[in-house]
């Protein structure tokens, strides 16, 4: 036996699928994957959704999630084949030798238990130390993970700390029983960039200090480059490429890896602002339930055929701005001028034509479409409502629109559940285009998508802008996206506009502190980036 802590040999994982209208059949999710991990090393597993990365990660605990079954191969942890051991042995393994950090800490904690009790639970369960010792260790871990007030934070309940803090508490939970291996399953994906960087730094420090080995699962190559020693690139359950971080980032061999490294490389020539903006937001102040102001005196302009990107972290008020413009939340002060005339603040009083010219695309395409309507009905409805199209004429236009979004006629009778994430978002785009709008509000439209799919959507949006001369209000927390598609940028922080101007103005120094923080927090695809950034940071994120 070698000195490998974890050894996966020719792992095969399968599941039974039950497609509607067809016979259930078995599929293979992971084909013949092998990897080795030495003590104290970090292996990054990277790939898009459906690549099998989480499934492989969980196999190191001999666990298959929701009907997934390990059908072949061997998994050795500390020299024993854990696929052969019984339930009792697995109980010894899980939470003692191998621990797990999940993506959404908020959903993984028991809301009715204090954090400390949950952090030391596994340690006590395995009888690894006394309660006092475990609590001392937890406090020590809280301190080294940079949590505020480490002595007392354990007395809080999960809802009393922020998302980034909760993710760090979960890391402490995984580290507490002194495991040999931790599986990190997208631990920073649900966080803001400015928070992500803190959590990333905390995880990296904890790994270095304790010498624990880790499998780090993510879809973001730039993130994994900061924490791991080696990277395994996966696609559709197959190994694509395996190498050191440096080799993968600097000289990727496979075509797919090269594409991943190049993601976010869409560029777009900045257009000059015109004299007559299509939408003028003037001194808008808005609040929910009349108490807390979510938007404070915000004014921005959007020009015909151009894109204004609104950036900021969660809670900055960027989605509220969209709600105000669409009329879902009438502002308490200020006015909105659309195409030369003032818009009625509340939605029910707006004319059908105003509604038609102002469309919206949502972040979660799956809940933005009625699951009981076909693609044809979804795209056809605006045509019927605004232009009175019927029958063959409507169908012809729907097919045209489907061609425009690069999907084609064969999708017309499908239901949303039969589409992939990227296709769903495309249908939503077609639905708003059907109205022939002058402005489309895009609320985090690419956030839920894999990087390469997201790039496809951005490219489509840019192409459509050229053809239809439609303006976009692009709400996002992702600065890489902003750089790719915007003409002007508005940076928001806690409801205020902190920086606003054309793309080149906003993105060139001198920066204010917040913009600097935001810009520097976007993970870059190079080694040592994390250390550099942390060394010269000026302020903390709002989530801390």
């Amino acid at each position, binding site marked *: 036996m070698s000195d490998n802590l974890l050894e996966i040999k020719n792992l095969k994982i399968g599941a039974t699928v039950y497609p509607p209208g067809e016979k259930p059949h078995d599929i293979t999710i992971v084909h013949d994957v092998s990897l080795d991990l030495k003590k104290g090393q970090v292996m990054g597993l990277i790939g898009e959704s459906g690549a099998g990365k989480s499934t492989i990660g969980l196999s190191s605990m001999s666990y298959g999630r929701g009907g997934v079954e390990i059908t072949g191969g061997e998994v050795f942890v500390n020299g024993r084949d854990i696929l052969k051991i019984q339930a009792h042995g697995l109980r010894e393994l899980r939470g003692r030798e191998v621990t797990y950090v999940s993506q959404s800490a908020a959903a993984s904690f028991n809301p009715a238990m204090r954090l400390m009790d949950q952090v030391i639970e596994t340690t006590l369960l395995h009888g690894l130390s006394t309660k006092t010792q475990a609590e001392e260790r937890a406090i020590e871990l809280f301190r080294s993970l940079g949590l505020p007030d480490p002595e007392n934070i354990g007395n809080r309940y999960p809802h009393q700390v922020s998302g980034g803090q909760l993710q760090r508490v979960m890391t402490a939970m995984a580290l507490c029983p002194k495991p040999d291996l931790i599986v990190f399953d997208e631990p920073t994906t649900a966080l803001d960039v400015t928070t992500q960087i803190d959590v990333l730094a905390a995880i990296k420090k904890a790994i270095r200090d304790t010498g624990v080995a880790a499998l780090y699962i993510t879809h973001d190559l730039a993130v994994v480059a900061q924490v791991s020693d080696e990277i395994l690139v996966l696609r559709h359950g197959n190994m694509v490429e395996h190498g050191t971080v440096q080799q993968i980032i600097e000289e990727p061999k496979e075509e797919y890896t090269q594409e991943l490294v190049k993601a976010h490389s869409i560029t777009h020539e900045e257009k000059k602002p015109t004299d007559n903006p299509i939408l003028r937001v003037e001194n808008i102040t808005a609040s929910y339930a009349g108490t807390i102001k979510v938007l404070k005196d915000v004014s921005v302009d959007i020009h015909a055929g151009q894109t204004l990107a609104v950036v900021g972290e969660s809670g900055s008020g960027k989605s509220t701005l969209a709600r105000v413009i669409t009329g879902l939340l009438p502002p308490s002060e200020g006015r909105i001028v659309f195409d030369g005339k003032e818009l009625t603040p509340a939605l029910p009083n707006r004319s059908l034509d105003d509604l038609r010219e102002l469309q919206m695309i949502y972040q979660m395409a799956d809940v933005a479409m009625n*699951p009981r309507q076909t693609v044809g009905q979804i795209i056809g409805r605006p045509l019927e409502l605004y232009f009175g199209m019927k029958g063959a004429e409507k169908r012809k236009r729907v097919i045209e629109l489907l061609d425009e979004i690069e999907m084609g006629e064969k999708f017309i009778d499908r239901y949303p559940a039969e589409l992939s994430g990227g296709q769903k978002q495309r249908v939503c785009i077609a639905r708003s285009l059907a109205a022939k709008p002058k402005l489309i509000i895009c609320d985090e439209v690419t956030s839920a998508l894999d990087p390469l799919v997201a790039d496809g959507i951005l490219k489509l949006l840019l192409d459509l802008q050229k053809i239809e001369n439609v303006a976009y209000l692009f709400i996002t927390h992702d600065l890489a996206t902003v750089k790719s598609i915007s003409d002007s940028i508005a940076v928001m922080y806690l409801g205020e506009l902190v920086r606003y101007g054309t793309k080149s103005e906003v993105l060139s120094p001198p920066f204010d502190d917040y913009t600097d923080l935001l810009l520097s927090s976007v993970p870059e695809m190079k080694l040592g980036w994390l250390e550099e950034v942390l060394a010269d940071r000026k302020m903390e994120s709002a989530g801390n």
Partner: protein
Amino acid sequence: MNFKRIPLSALVGIIATGGFLFVAVFAPALAPYGMAEIVGDVWEPASDEFLLGTDNVGRDLLTRMMYGARITIFIAGAATIFSFVMGSVLGFTAAVTGGWFDMVLSRFVDLLMSIPTLIFALVVLSVLPGNLVTLIVVMGVLDSTRVYRLSRAVAVDINVMDYVEAARLRGEGTRWIVFREILPNALSPLVAEFGLRFIFAVLFLSSLSFLGLGIQPPEADWGGMVKENKEGIIFGIPAALIPAFAIAVLAISVNLVADWILNRTSDLKGGRG
């Protein structure tokens, strides 16, 4: 539709429910005797002449059962449909419009539900003229409070989905939102509830008849038949148990069908199955 894919339990339910419906519809043609015709002695045991025996005044029980199925299923079905149409439309509208409409309606429903249903029905039915329409309306209104609550709760969840917001931003009216966006997505829990409520309606109607305020003699209905024959039980005559047994079988078979429909409509493919 592929009949081989219907699970056994649903098949049993379909056959039994279908049998009840068939008998109900064709009772006059199938029944061996007239509905109120006295053909034999009191409480005669089952024989070739009277397959289930005779009742307390000597009418053929099988005939009475068939006519009873006809009237029981008709009234319970009509009351349930009435309660679903009223309850779900009001419930959805309340959830979608909100505000005072929702408040007034919901508090009114609370008020109705705070009064025990059976006592409420007894009072109302003893005051109002006793005919079928009154019976159906009273049962429907009382049942619709439960349907209202369920539909409102389901619709409140659906109402916050992005596709409903998208429909609102598109300029759709309340009617479109209720019938096109919410109703298709609220169907599964409603169908399941329909089976259950139908059976409650059968039981409720039987209780009313048993107490003498439902179907009036000499019309046959299952609850009334239990009442007419209940004295026989002490003498070991099973005549009262036959309609009770029929109620139980109908309850089970309707729910087997409802379960299966629920499975089909919660299918990913938008219920085409």
